[in-house]
Structures are given as structure tokens and as C-alpha cells.
């Protein structure tokens, strides 16, 4: 008998080809991003190496020939490395597009935050060691030397003030993390870091040899300072202002989604030029009385259609509550788009999206703008009751359109169990793996409250997912 095994049809082969092509494309994009990331990280290491090299080239090693100069030598090195890293912190917070596209805005800020304490310690060590080192040279104790520095030496008084500001910035940043201070207070104090940098600058000219004429160090430090301050000015001031003026966004409608949750739609000029993607966020400022001074980050809740942008906001605090009373016609200025909680960070073809509460907003938008073949995506939604699953109808329709499987877990978490599942799902023995059987070969996108998000991440890692497969957007800074 002749075999009846079906030969692959032409259409099936073509479909397969397209699928592998897409897979290769995703892999290529991912490798390119990795390579870019490695390059940027390498630049950071090199910058520290260059600082040390310039110090040595300028005869820095002579400080380490005699014991009494070693203190001074280390004091100078800590100051140099501290300054270098502080400028790198600025660059990380400048929202430079290539950094955002490579690491994501949140990772860049995480590194920025991580550097804060070490940089402060380096600067304090610099100050202390030089007080001791120069003090020994002059036969003064460190306190007397400090007083002598402040009173007699050029630009040293303001350098001491700069250190004070720096301490204030780091301490308030640590406190704000524990939620003891308001965001606005932290923000104002944080602006002082620019003051600290500017106040510390003169003593680097007059006391140190950082900018000594005719040295390579001079060019290196000038480039670094100018680069850091210019990127802040360009990417955080000039471009946002220009972009806001150009696109001339205005609120076109405010729709209530649920009690305390509104969708704000904004229309403007030339929206396509923003190249915004579902899953990205902007920092928005609404020019209404009582609101204009307060800017907040909100994710797009829909893929931009070329004419309008939409966000969906829950009243979690004073600022977000004010959006409920927003009037159509209000002018909007913005910074963004930011973030790679998008298709751009995909590493493979399949994807699982997990959202809770208002965290559904970027999940819905990324689902809409993602390149997905049928049956490649799974969407898991959580809400403490059915009303808490916002944008539910829209998400349902999208899943039907994309042939994605959709699981909704409603209800509170079981008491006394550390899980992100609802009590009902938990008792039925559900897990990430039962809800999304393809998860091990998928990218996982998570958005929800941070403690909840952490539990999803924990389960994903237990299943063996790699860090690069896991993408989480956290709504709290």
C-alpha cells in the first residue's frame, strides 16, 4: 500500500519559513541588544580605567613610594573615581535613548541608584584621606587641616558644601525608598545634586590637577563633564519641551472604566513620529489648575493608532485622583516614550503576559502592538474581584483576535500562603506552568504591585526561566 502520509503543502511550508524567519529576526535583535549592552558596560569600566591611567601618567605612582604620601594618593584616587562614577550616574539618569533602548529605563535607574552610596563613600573617603594626608604634611590634625582648607584654600569652602548636599541627596533617596518622605520632597532635594556637582567643580580646577593645562586629563574630564551635563539638558529638557510643542497634545476624552479608574485619550499632531510602542510609558503633565506642577509616569494602555494616545489610570494617590476630574481640551506636555517593556525586548517567539489590577494597562497595550502568531501568547489576569479586572472587554477581544489564550484569576489570595494566585486557583493546584504550558520557551511580561510581581518572578525562576526571559514593569519607583 502506498503511504498516505501527507506531504507538506506549499502553504504550510511558507508558513513555516515565515515563522523561522521571524524567530531569526527576534534572535538577531536580541543579540544586537546584548552586544550594545556589553559595549556600554565596557565603556563604564574603561572610564574608571582611564581615570586611573591619567592619574598614573601624571606621576600618580610617586604617591605610593613613601608611606606618608600613600594616604594622599589614595585620597586623590577616591576623589577621581568618585567624580567619574558620579558623572556616570548623571548620564544614567539622563534618559539617553540608546541606554533606554538597550537596558530599559528602569534598569538604568536601578544602576544609578546602586551607585549612589558607593559614590558618596568614595567622596567622603577622598575628603577624609586628604584631610589626614595633607594634615600630616603640614603637621596638623585632620580637623585643623579641614579648617585650614576651608579658610585658606581657594574653592574649598564650597567643595565642603557640595559634600553636604551630596549627603542630603543620598540620605533622602534612602529614606524615600522606605516611603517616609513624599516624592516631591525627594525630587527637590535630588535637584541639589546638580548644585553639588557644580559647587565641587572649582576645587577640581584650583586644587587638583584634573584640569591642569596641557594634560590629557584635562580633555577627558572636560568631555565627561560637558557630555553629562549636555545630555541631561538635551534629553530631559530640550527634547521633551520641543516634542511637547511639536505634537501639541490635548485631552480629547476622559472615560470612566471603573470606580476610581479612568482612561484619558489625547490627540495631537504627527503622533506617528513619536514611534511609541504599546508597553512604553510617558511622564505626563496636564496643564490644569492644581495639576500642572505635578508630573507622573503612566503607561500607554493602547497601541498608538497614529492620531491619539491613551492612558488608563487608577486613583492610587493625590495626583492620580486629580485625573478623574480632567476636562477635555486640557493641554498636555510629556517626556517620553520610555521603556522596553515592549516587543523590542523579546528574546523568543512565544510570550506570556501576566497583569494584576491597574498593571493590566501596559499588558493590554503590548499585546496589541506585539507581533504574535496564533496560539503563541498566553494572557493571565488577576483582580481581587471581577470589577478589578480593568479593560476586561478590550483585552478579551484582543485575545480573540490574536488567538491568544486568556486566563482570569479573580478573588483574594489564600490566607497565610505566599502566592500570587487567587485562593481559588491555588486550591485547584494551578501554577504558572498549568496556566501557560509553553512558559519555559516564552518571554514573560509581568506588571502589577511590586510584592505580587516578585512572587511571579520567583515562580518563573523556579521553573527555570532565565533572567533575560523575564520582563517586569514596576509602577512604583
Amino acid at each position, binding site marked *: 500500500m502506498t503511504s498516505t502520509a501527507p506531504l507538506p503543502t506549499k502553504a504550510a511550508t511558507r508558513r513555516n519559513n515565515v515563522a523561522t524567519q521571524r524567530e531569526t529576526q527576534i534572535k538577531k535583535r536580541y543579540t544586537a541588544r*546584548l552586544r550594545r*549592552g*556589553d*559595549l556600554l*558596560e*565596557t565603556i563604564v*569600566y*574603561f572610564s*574608571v*580605567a*582611564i581615570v*586611573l*591611567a*591619567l*592619574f*598614573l*601618567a*601624571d*606621576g*600618580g*605612582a*610617586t604617591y605610593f*613610594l*613613601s608611606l*606618608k*604620601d600613600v594616604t*594622599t594618593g589614595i585620597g586623590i584616587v577616591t576623589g577621581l573615581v568618585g567624580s567619574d562614577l558620579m558623572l556616570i550616574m548623571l548620564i544614567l539618569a539622563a534618559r539617553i535613548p540608546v541606554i533606554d533602548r538597550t537596558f530599559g529605563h528602569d534598569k538604568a535607574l536601578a544602576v544609578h541608584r546602586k551607585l549612589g552610596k558607593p559614590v558618596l563613600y568614595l567622596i567622603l573617603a577622598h575628603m577624609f584621606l*586628604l584631610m589626614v*594626608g*595633607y594634615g*600630616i*604634611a*603640614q603637621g596638623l590634625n585632620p580637623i585643623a*587641616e579641614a579648617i*585650614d*582648607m576651608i579658610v*585658606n*584654600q*581657594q574653592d*574649598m569652602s564650597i567643595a565642603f558644601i557640595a559634600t553636604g548636599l551630596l549627603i542630603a541627596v543620598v540620605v533622602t533617596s534612602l529614606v524615600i525608598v522606605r516611603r517616609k518622605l513624599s516624592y516631591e520632597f525627594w525630587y527637590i532635594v535630588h535637584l541639589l545634586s546638580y548644585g553639588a556637582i557644580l559647587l565641587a567643580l572649582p576645587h577640581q580646577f*584650583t*586644587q*587638583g*590637577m584634573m584640569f*591642569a*593645562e596641557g594634560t590629557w586629563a584635562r580633555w577627558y574630564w572636560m568631555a565627561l563633564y560637558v557630555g553629562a551635563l549636555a545630555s541631561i539638558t538635551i534629553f530631559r529638557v530640550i527634547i521633551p519641551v520641543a516634542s511637547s510643542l511639536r505634537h501639541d497634545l490635548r485631552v480629547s476624552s476622559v472615560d470612566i472604566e471603573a470606580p476610581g479608574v479612568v482612561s484619558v485619550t489625547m490627540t495631537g499632531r504627527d503622533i506617528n513620529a513619536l514611534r511609541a510602542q504599546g508597553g512604553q510609558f510617558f511622564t505626563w503633565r496636564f496643564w490644569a489648575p492644581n495639576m500642572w506642577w505635578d508630573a507622573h509616569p503612566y503607561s500607554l494602555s493602547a497601541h498608538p493608532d497614529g492620531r491619539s494616545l491613551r492612558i488608563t489610570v487608577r486613583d492610587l494617590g493625590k495626583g492620580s485622583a486629580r485625573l478623574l476630574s480632567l476636562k477635555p481640551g486640557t493641554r498636555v506636555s510629556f517626556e517620553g516614550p520610555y521603556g522596553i517593556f515592549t516587543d523590542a525586548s523579546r528574546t523568543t517567539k512565544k510570550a506570556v503576559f501576566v497583569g494584576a489590577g491597574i498593571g493590566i494597562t501596559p499588558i493590554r497595550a503590548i499585546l496589541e502592538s506585539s507581533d504574535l502568531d496564533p496560539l503563541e501568547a498566553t494572557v493571565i489576569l488577576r483582580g481581587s474581584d471581577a470589577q478589578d479586572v480593568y479593560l476586561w472587554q478590550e483585552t478579551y477581544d484582543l485575545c480573540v483576535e490574536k488567538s491568544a489564550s486568556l486566563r482570569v484569576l479573580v478573588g483574594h489570595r489564600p490566607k497565610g500562603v505566599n502566592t500570587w494566585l487567587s485562593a481559588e486557583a491555588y486550591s485547584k493546584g494551578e501554577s504558572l506552568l498549568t496556566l501557560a504550558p509553553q512558559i519555559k520557551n516564552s518571554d514573560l511580561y509581568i506588571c502589577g504591585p511590586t510584592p505580587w510581581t516578585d512572587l511571579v518572578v520567583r515562580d518563573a525562576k523556579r521553573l527555570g526561566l532565565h533572567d533575560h526571559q523575564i520582563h517586569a514593569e514596576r509602577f512604583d519607583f
Partner: protein
Amino acid sequence: MRARSAFFAGMGSAAIIAIGWQAGVGTLVSALPESQASASGTSNSASSATTSNSSTSTTDTSAAAPAATTAPVASGPADGTYDGSVVNTRFGTVQVQAVISGGKITDVIAVKLTDADRKSIAISQQVAPMVRSEVLTAQSAHVANISGGTYTTQAYLQSLQSALDAAGFTG
């Protein structure tokens, strides 16, 4: 960061630091007392003392004759006043003279100090005596920087070192 890139970043950084070290070796060697001793022959430098920078030469070169014949201090520098080189800084020109007597630095005379503005004059007046006394105690141009007067100190010591080199003074 992937392992290969981390390796590259590490090696690259090490190479950069090594280049800096290499570039700094000159300064380092001149700061090492021993290497100077081996580098400069006595008679050589004694004779160069009379030629170096002496255009403005003033003062009593009391022991102008090469000291090669005086047996006990044969390896020491000749007594005399030696002009240091003229060093330019962004705050003005610095030049000092070293007075050598009996194989020791007995005085350092500031011919010219940073004077670009009132501030640098003040710094010069404050810093120079401190460096001078440090130098006299240490009997070398290798003394710690005086903070607050880095430019003046460095230029002062650089000028002094050239005077000491000219004298064949090796500490």
C-alpha cells in the same frame, strides 16, 4: 554582561591602566632617589651646573671649581647656588634657586612665584615657605604636595629638582 565581553572589558581596562603606568614611569623614576644616583655622574652634572640656565645667573658661585679634587666629598655636589628651570603654570611663572653647601641643601631661594592674581600671590606667600622648610628637612625635592597650592608646589618642586639635577645633588 556576557563572559567574553567581561573578559574583554577587564583586559582592556588593565591595558589602559598599564599604558597610564608606562606613561608615568618617567615621573616615577625621577622621583626615585636611587635611580638618580646611578643616572648622573658627578663631574658631568657639576659641569652642567655652570651652563644650565645661568643666563640670569646672579650670585656668588663661591665654589665654582669642580669639586672633583676634594677627596672626602668627592661624590657630593659642588657648593654653590644653582638656578632651577623656569616653570610656567596657569597662575604664573615659577623659578627657584638651590643653595648647596657642604653637600646639603642649605637654602632655597624663590626667584619668581605664581602671581597671576591677588589670590595666587597670597597662595605663593603662604605655600613657598612651607615647601622650603619641607625641602630643607627632607633634603630633597620629593616632598608632599601642599594642598591649596598644588600648582605652586608642583612648579616649585619641579624647578628645584632641575636645580638639584644641575648640581648633581642626589640627596
